[in-house]
């Protein structure tokens, strides 16, 4: 094994003043590539080492301007273009209201550019292979010692022993020869590892985002109003004596717009109640709809009184096609629908008066449709609308 290549020679100095006096001496000795390492910023070193002024400010200005434009653009594009919001009669492009966000955008981008730009772009950090980082002197430099490094120039010969002597002559001690850092070209395995690591990081970030936005907020007790302590229709509730969640109206309640039926039998109802609705296609259509909803289950679609429920249904619904019911007045049927008859329940609470009268009209139509006389059929055949 040959000796590792020399990176440079490092020496420690007890104070910043020693450092500042040593640099001109070493420069006079012909050493041009001098690095200084100090525990805190030493003013004067930049002139002694001819360091160029920092250009960080220009970068920060540009990125700050970018942040300002970006934030302003975000507010403008979202609130005036993509989803125009009208708030308090202000114009869509209410630019004065976007100044605070613009300012914050500029500062956010400016500060992070200043810090990260300094570390990454200008100082080329993180770098864990720096020769000085591995030197014996590193803890001393970070504590209270000041170091000078004579770097080996790339184009001219360099004698480490002579450099060490020059450093000692300038006041340095604890001289160290630092080896060149080993730079290996990354192989295929390195690239595979790096790409896998980046892919894994992306996956974790994506899963984390989905988890935080989509999954986490849906875990109980973090439910978003879909679970409410509320009684839905027909739900039981032990609060009331009858265990019903829904309340019945008190006896004798009359809905707005309704008239109570004062007659006490179907016969007297048939005498006193008159159908207020005309015979029209709209009324019949409405009657058919309500009849199919409320009546057809027991009385059958044609009113034959054969329940759909079959023989399991014990009661015998009335045959609306019977001659008795063909001859009763409209008021009779209306009274029965409203008040109930025998096992048939009252429907006054579920069907509005107009709908009940419409059902009566439809029942009349049903009755006429069954056993229709020849004349009706002929009218129908010629498309007659004789009435």
């Amino acid at each position: 094994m040959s000796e590792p290549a020399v990176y440079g020679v490092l020496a420690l100095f007890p104070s910043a003043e020693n450092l500042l006096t040593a640099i001109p001496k070493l420069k006079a000795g012909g050493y041009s590539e001098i690095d200084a390492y100090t525990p805190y910023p030493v003013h004067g070193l930049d002139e002694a080492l001819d360091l160029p002024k920092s250009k960080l400010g220009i970068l920060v200005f540009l990125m700050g301007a970018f942040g300002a434009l970006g934030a302003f653009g975000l507010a403008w594009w979202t609130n005036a273009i993509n989803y125009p919001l009208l708030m308090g009669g202000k114009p869509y492009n209410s630019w004065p209201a976007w100044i605070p966000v613009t300012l914050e955008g500029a500062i956010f981008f400016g500060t992070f550019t200043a810090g990260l730009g300094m570390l990454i772009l200008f100082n080329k950090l993180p770098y864990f292979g720096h020769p000085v980082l591995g030197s014996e002197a590193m803890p001393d430099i970070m504590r209270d010692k000041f170091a000078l490094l004579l770097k080996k120039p790339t184009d001219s010969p360099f004698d480490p022993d002579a450099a060490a002597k020059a450093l000692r002559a300038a006041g340095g001690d604890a001289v160290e020869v630092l080896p060149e850092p080993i730079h290996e070209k990354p192989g295929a395995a390195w690239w595979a590892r790096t790409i896998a690591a980046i892919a894994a990081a992306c996956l974790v970030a994506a899963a984390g985002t989905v988890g935080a936005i989509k999954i986490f907020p849906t875990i109980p007790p973090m439910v978003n109003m879909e679970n409410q302590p509320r009684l839905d229709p027909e739900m039981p509730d032990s609060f009331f004596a009858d265990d019903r969640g829904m309340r019945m109206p008190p006896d004798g309640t009359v809905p707005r717009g309704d008239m109570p039926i004062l007659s006490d039998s179907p016969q007297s109802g048939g005498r006193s109640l008159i159908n207020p609705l005309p015979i029209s296609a709209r009324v019949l259509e409405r009657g058919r709809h309500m009849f199919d909803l409320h009546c057809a289950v027991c009385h059958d679609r044609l009113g034959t009184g054969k329940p759909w429920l079959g023989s399991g249904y014990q009661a015998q619904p009335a045959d609306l096609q019977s001659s008795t019911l063909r001859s009763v007045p409209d008021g009779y049927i209306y009274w029965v629908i409203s008040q109930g008859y025998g096992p048939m329940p009252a429907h006054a609470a579920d069907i509005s008066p107009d709908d009940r009268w419409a059902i009566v009209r439809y029942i009349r139509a049903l009755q006429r449709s069954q056993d229709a006389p020849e004349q009706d059929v002929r009218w129908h055949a010629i498309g007659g609308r004789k009435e």
Partner: protein
Amino acid sequence: MSEAIVLPPELRLDPIVEGDVSIAGLDQHVLELIETKPPRSWYIAIAITSLMALLGFSAVGYMISTGIGTMGNNVPVVWGFLIVNFVFWVGIGHAGTLISVILLLFRQRWRNAICRIAEAVTVFAFICAMMFPAIHIGRPWLPHWLLPYPNERDLWPDFRSPLIWDVFAVFTYFSVSVFFWYLGLIPDFASLRGRVKSKIKRAIFSVLSWGWVGDARHWLQYEQAYLLLAGLTTTLALSVHSIVSMDFAASVVPGWHMTIFPPYFVVGAAFSGFAGVVLVFAFVRTTMKLENYITMRHMDLLNKMVLFLSCVMAYAYLMEGFTAWYSSNDFVRYIFVNYVFGDQWWAGCLTIFCNCLLPQLLWVPKFRRSVPIMVLVSSGVTLGMWMERYTIIILSLHRDYLPATWGIYKPTPVDWGILLGSIGIFLTLLLLFLKNIPLIAAWEVKPDIVQELARRRTSARDPERARLMETGHV
């Protein structure tokens, strides 16, 4: 030997480090705390503060699982303790930036020893502050709804609303404060890297210090970045509490709708922040044996800031009263009278007593250097500034323009539990910081120590020259 700048005697200041100091000794003293086991009192303290924090979390959990009826806020006082605490903690969080950033721009070198702890106070106060809006939004598991991101609802936040300005301001301020704090820590992490024995800790500090080697080129860029950050953060510090104040000032509630609110809030924030920092230092400098670095002169200067800001606050209160009178609006005038003579008169009276009268003690130089007095005054100011936010938020809301809706606000045990919990979180984080992170920015204080040692050498070797320096003739 470089020449020290000689100031006329009336401008000359006491040394900013005292006693037996050296730059190696500073590292030894400050960084050793991280490697050694803390004393028993630290464990007792952190046990108490974590219990307080736990109490706060329980209160929040109880409130969320049961309902907001467990808190005291209800129409018309819909902004209760949560918003009072938010504004209070944001205010405490302003001292760090003002000390480390604005004093840096004014080249006040005494800030160097105290900036790290002050920045920690900022960061932790902001963590406490940010919890409150998160709870207040009602569904704390959906905080991302505050941010403009493309979502399935196709909705964006309304950028005309002061509340969204607030989100941006607080988020920016917090992230920038943490970043600034971390940037200052990088050289100190590099020192720790070489000191710690454990391999794992060394690896952690290596990564945290980005492989910092103290290269003069790096320092040049570093100082430039530090200065740029200071300039930008100054703007930020002044803007954040201004924007918080617009949450109030941009509404039409009597007592809120005033143009003096932004500067008034910024001064109040700085005032409570300085008081909070004095309180922290009063305990930290003796318990952590930092008297040589955080000297009585530091405390004296901080107390002068408290006194100055107290006078500005008194002026702001007077101007608030003038605005109320000049508005010729019965409701606005009534609100101001109601602060001091209303149902909850004690809130307004405590505010004025603690913020304007009590700090006047600090005109006496002896009191500025007396720890019991400064603890009394800054505790009073902290309480008074909390009361000021209570007065502004709650006493303005409970008497608005519609007398039919006037109400009264009574905090519940849940409210008090959440407030106590936030104090517990703050103190727990502070204790963890004192144990685990270098609590003095060593790289900033080291040049001051070198300067002080040079001054002492000059005066020992050449008393005549030192005497001339004293009288400003050199």
